């Protein structure tokens, strides 16, 4: 997929303060239309807060964020139509069928949902009439993606989507994210799994203590490190334990 250089999200000097502490200390970055942009960092680095400010869930204490030409702080209600949000641990009201939940979400945008098409895309068509509480963790994540896309958003935010999933479910989710990207949706994802960032992201920003400490493609970041003369102590194996695990247990989804 050819990446455009058209900026869909422009963040300048974005800041957030909790009490006396600055959680996000003035960060700037651009996200291009149609790419998968990763925000990496340890816990408490400010990844989620950054996302929540752009998602209009938290007030912006300083700086600006412009999404598809719309200023987030000035027109939060317009922003909501442009974005789809997958929160850290998705949960939905119980005793409601998957199709009904999709109808609810679509209705929130004043739209009608093509429930079966959406469920088919995330491989949950056979669960259409099940309640959400009967889904496994991986299924819930997949359903959550469908729910976030009911209104055809331009930008899709995922906050640590694979935390707590088994390797099969993780890989399946990566595929889904790539499918969403292939439809032309820009994806912004936070994670603290480096392998995930390496597989999925076209470019990544590394955050630490409320600041961006590096921003580039995963390849370039690795190259820069090697150029500095960095060497791993051990010789890199051609496979790792996860490859063994997948080889032994197969790629098929377990849910």
């Amino acid at each position: 997929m050819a990446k455009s250089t058209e900026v869909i999200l422009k963040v300048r000097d974005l800041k957030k303060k909790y009490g006396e502490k600055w959680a996000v200390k003035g960060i700037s970055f651009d996200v291009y239309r149609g790419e998968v942009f990763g925000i990496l960092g340890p816990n408490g680095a400010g990844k989620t807060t950054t996302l929540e400010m752009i998602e209009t869930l938290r007030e912006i204490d300083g700086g600006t964020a412009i999404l598809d030409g719309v200023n987030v702080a000035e027109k939060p209600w317009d922003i909501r139509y442009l974005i789809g949000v997958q929160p850290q641990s998705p949960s939905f009201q119980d005793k409601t069928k998957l199709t009904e939940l999709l109808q609810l979400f679509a209705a929130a945008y004043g739209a009608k949902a093509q429930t079966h098409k959406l469920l088919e895309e995330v491989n949950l068509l056979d669960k259409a009439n099940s309640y959400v509480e009967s889904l496994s963790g991986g299924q819930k994540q997949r359903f959550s993606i469908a729910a976030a896309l009911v209104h055809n958003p331009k930008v899709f935010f995922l906050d640590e989507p694979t935390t707590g999933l088994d390797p099969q479910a993780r890989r399946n989710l990566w595929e889904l994210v790539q499918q969403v990207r292939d439809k032309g949706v820009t994806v912004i994802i936070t994670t603290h799994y480096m392998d995930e960032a390496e597989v999925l992201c076209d470019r990544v920003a590394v955050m630490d203590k409320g600041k961006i400490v590096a921003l580039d493609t995963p390849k370039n970041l690795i190259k820069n490190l090697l150029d500095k003369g960095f060497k791993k102590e051990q010789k890199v194996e051609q496979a790792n334990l996860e490859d063994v695990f997948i080889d032994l247990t197969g790629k098929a989804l377990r849910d």
Partner: protein
Amino acid sequence: MKKKMMTVLVFVKINTRRFFRDRLALFFTVIFPLIFLFIFGGLFGKQPTVSFKVGLINQSDSAFSQQFVSDMQKSKTFKVDNEVTDLATAQTKMNRGEIDATIILPTGFGDSKNGQYPSGQAQVIYTQNNEQAGSTLVQVLNAQFQAMNKQYVHADTPFTVTSKQLNEQGLTRFDYTFAGLLGFSIIGLGIFGPVNVFPELKKQGILRRLHTTPLRVWQYFMSTAFSQAIVGLLTMGVLFAVAITVFHLHVVGNWLELALFLAFGIITILGIGLAIGGWAKNERQAAPLANIVVFPMLFLSGTFFPRYVMPEWLQKLSAFLPLTPIIDGIRMIATEGKHLTQIGPQIGLVAIWFVIIYAIAFRVFRWE
């Protein structure tokens, strides 16, 4: 605007459907008030006539006294406790309040003294705590004896008194109780429902997820209000059906006006639940506040006992609680047959509360 209302309708449809899948919620909104209805219906149900629970000790073996005993046992005015055969049991039962008084027919009661007609003197025994029942019983017996006396001895009675019952049916205790019970059901549905549900929705981040969509608070409130009104009207339909068939509740008012007023009441009280549940971050914040708000209404608005039994100052004060005009209004429409135009003060007071409650609810609502 049309689109925004469509959003509300979809939420109403799906969430109402969801409510009927929730057995626990169904129990608390439908079965719970029904249980209360049977309890209070049994306590305050319409009793056909006043009846005395009496012990009857017959020490005479005359034919007359035998007849008298069997008449008493058939009587609707008296309920004869057959376990009482001697004075000792009678005394214990009276002390416990199980019977109101004891009638003793002494030896020789009903014998024909001079071969003309039977005569005798019955004795009524009662305890201090039953003085009123005892003296009323004496009067009732006296009246019965006088009627009997007339059969044997003819005497002129210059002054007599007759009574006549007016056809108009006054309000019974049950009419008050039933309106109060509907009030109780409104509180359960409108306050305890959201107060339990909202903190849970927040804890799981469900409201937060909705917050990322363009859904407005007023749309969320409105859809909740409509769906609760539907559930509430159905519940109350069941309560009315049972009250009418089992407890002979006589509804004279217009059903449509009643339904409109009930829906208005439900939505107003729901505002309290939305305010508390919408404000609270978790159950620990919600529960105590809900209790503080609910208890005064539960005891002072006429839910469990009618307000007319309260001291006057308390009646004046409790008249302004939000639930009071709702309960009064329900009773006025249902059992007094008043129209909406005739209960202006009640509707006005509910409307004022509606504005206050929802102004607060919108202000304090938090999505997480």
